[in-house]
């Protein structure tokens, strides 16, 4: 079926089978390979993207379902050449090692902070249990997200 996806403000006209997941469409048809696929059954969260303002598992949505809603991926997190405060914080706090889970964690954390910039540390930490990281033991990720939250608040974001 022919679809139009709106990803990071750009329009992608693609043709896929109905069974094609949003994750596969983003990666294969739209060529945005920053979104990763780790389990395809909704547990690991590597494929997390923001659809209509909510972080979702893009392996648990069919591409056709995302038509008409703005989609954001890691490629659209920061302006070209720049870094989102979360990206800066992940680098500063060693929130990544192999980098495979990182885009999913960034989009998860971005959606949480956008919805509630004043989320408590405990709530932020809790929200991060949605995704799996196999490398870091999570400490760097927690520290990064808490630091980014502070940075974004102090910028009045």
């Amino acid at each position: 079926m022919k679809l139009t996806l709106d990803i990071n403000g750009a329009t992608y006209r693609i043709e896929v089978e109905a069974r094609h997941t949003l994750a596969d469409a983003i990666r294969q048809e739209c060529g945005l390979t920053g979104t990763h696929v780790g389990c395809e059954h909704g547990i690991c969260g590597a494929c997390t993207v923001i659809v209509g303002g909510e972080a979702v598992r893009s392996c648990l949505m069919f591409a056709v379902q995302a038509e008409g809603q703005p989609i954001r991926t890691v490629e659209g997190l920061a302006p070209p050449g720049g870094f989102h405060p979360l990206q800066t914080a992940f680098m500063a706090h060693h929130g990544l090692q192999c980098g495979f889970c990182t885009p999913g964690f960034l989009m998860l954390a971005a959606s949480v902070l956008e919805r509630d910039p004043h989320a408590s540390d405990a709530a932020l930490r809790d929200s991060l249990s949605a995704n799996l990281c196999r490398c870091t033991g999570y400490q760097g990720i927690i520290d990064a997200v808490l630091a980014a939250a502070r940075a974004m608040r102090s910028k009045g974001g």
Partner: protein
Amino acid sequence: MMGWAGRPILRLEDPALVRGQGHFTADLPARFRVRFVRSVVAAGRIVRIMPPDGATVFTIADLAGVKPIRPMLHKFGYIPIEQPVLADGIVRYVGDPVAVVVADSDAAAEDIADQVEVEIIAAAPVTNARDAAAPGAPLVRAEVPGNIVVEAAIETAGHRLAISRTHRVVACSVRSNRQNASPLEPRAAHAAFDPASWRVTLTATTQTPHMMRTVIADLLGIREADLRVIAPDVGGGFGQKMSLAPEFVVLVWLARHLRTSVAWTEDRRENLMASFHARDMDLSVTGAFDAGAKLIALTGEVLANVGAYAPYPNTAAVEPLMSLAELPGPYDVAEYACRVRGAVTNTCSSAPYRGVARPALTLAMERLMDKAAREFGIEPWDIRRRNLVTRFPYVSASGLTYDPGTYLETMERALSMADAPSFRARQAVARAAGRYLGIGLSTFCERTGYGSPAFAARGMDVTPGWETVRIAMDPSGAVEARIGASPHGQGLETALAQIIADELGVTPEAIRVIHGDTDDTPYGWGTFASRSLVIAGGASLLAARKVRRKLLAIAATMLEADAADIMLDDGAARIVGTDRTIPIATLARASYHQAHRFEVEPGLAESATYDPAGTFSNACHLAIVEVDVETCAVSIERFIVAEDAGRLINPMIVDGQIRGGVAQGIANALLEEVVYTDAGDPLSTSFADFLLPTVREIPRIEIAHLQTSATPSITAAKGLGEGGAIGAPAAVMNAINDALAPFGAEIDEMPATPARIHAALREAG
């Protein structure tokens, strides 16, 4: 200015990765997608394979001439076992690749794979090592008598006599259930045939690109020059991506056969049932102690379930042989006897996973020490104070030489961080209130950065060890370092750049570390066994020194000074004590374009190889847990690591390695378990069944560093990639047992699931 090494500089790898600009294998488009048809029975004989009409499906008959995988070692009664790259008439575990489907999309390939009818006459499977090793067990493979593929033993001369004379003998049997390393990126491969050069480029999730090229070329009977292997960004490996995937061989064969590009990405279910497993081990240890609780003699018996096949290059013997050599760990014991065996079964093959056998060995030794402490009526730390090795170099009863470390000092540091004496008071108060806290220690040493002599002792056909690094400063003054190691998340590019920067007087950002491409890097072994920082780091230092010498010679000519009076720093060569400088970039340009002026060879490209004996790092892990005796849930209140990995090149990266390893170790102790039914059906085939920890299961890990500088490692750095995973399980298990002590309950099998803790409590009444 101070050197770059030793500073927690931010990683050079990160800007691309946080922007989603990493290049992972599965990102590559291909003409065809590949899916493997896998056995659904654990043991049997294939009668027929019937693909649907019109489908492109290949079996081993089509791959005639492709040799079976057959890694070899020439010691310990090892019986070589073969693995055809697709099943050749016999299936040996659920997940065994039987046929390969080629289609236009992953989904279409899976549709076809589902329709391939594989008729199998099922046989009775053997699924665990105890059954396999029992007398009269059905043979998993006709060529392996008694199902024992490797058996080795050691006994020191005075062992028997020492046991007969000792004061007290303490026995301990532990079981480590099967694990899957579970990197978040599943295995993947992309093979592209180039009609112009007649070469195939294999891009794959591997920790060992050069070794992959060698073995795949061997199996296909082609020249290595006709195959290029690329390990791009790799999404974690932990050992699982060090061994040869038979699927890789099939992919290269397909690319050559079809003269196009083909790609395969395993799904999570395949990864969990048919990649590689590890740590399926039973261990019995007996310690003979004198009246002062000093260990006099140690006896060990280890049985490992190695699965159906022998992974290349390590063979099926890696866990048993690691056990034989390293069971005594950090303890001083003069007399040692041990028998280790590996049993083949109808389960997925076992291969190295971060720590290789040592998480289970450490569990056995640390449980032994805690049991002995209880029998002697002393604290766990007291018995360790009497038994840890404190004089170096120390030659272990198994013949290993331990270079200087801080086995006792790290434990004391951990104890003081935990305020262990006051914990006992707190524990008593909590118990009175019906809350059960426990403290657990795990002390261990870890052989890291070992070169070819250590591997040669195993008698392997393939003897890894050394690493080569080629460093070239180009005419603009930028540096490229080409390495045979193959990092996949460790931050090695940054750490090597720090080492090289200090030699060449440039910033780490000026150094590009190139790895993971057999066309573009010197032959090397890859990244595994806590070796890359030590060995590739040592080679980087040696190569950088060569480049440095040339730069100094050129600078001496250009500054009209003695090379001994010149230092390289901050991008310039300077005559010490003066302000006379010349930019290093100017020296670089001159070395190529004004070479006639200098007595050294033109250019600034140098190569060096490093093949060290190895160095032992050490640590003490300390866990404080609470066991909810109603629900049998365990929560970790504190987790402390005091460790010694020698000189820290990048402390931020070091802490990340420790934390990541500890998280895997905690999961090993509490959550993760690959379960098979007696019929050989794997039950742990999704992330809803194989339980990786989330942020909520992993506590904040407190870390202290001691830095022993007296090490044979020329950078003074020791390896540390595996230590977290080695030490953490025993600390958690000891803490659980300490918590359960009032009930007289003991648990020596991990993971300590609610069901096992519940059973232990019921058994204790």
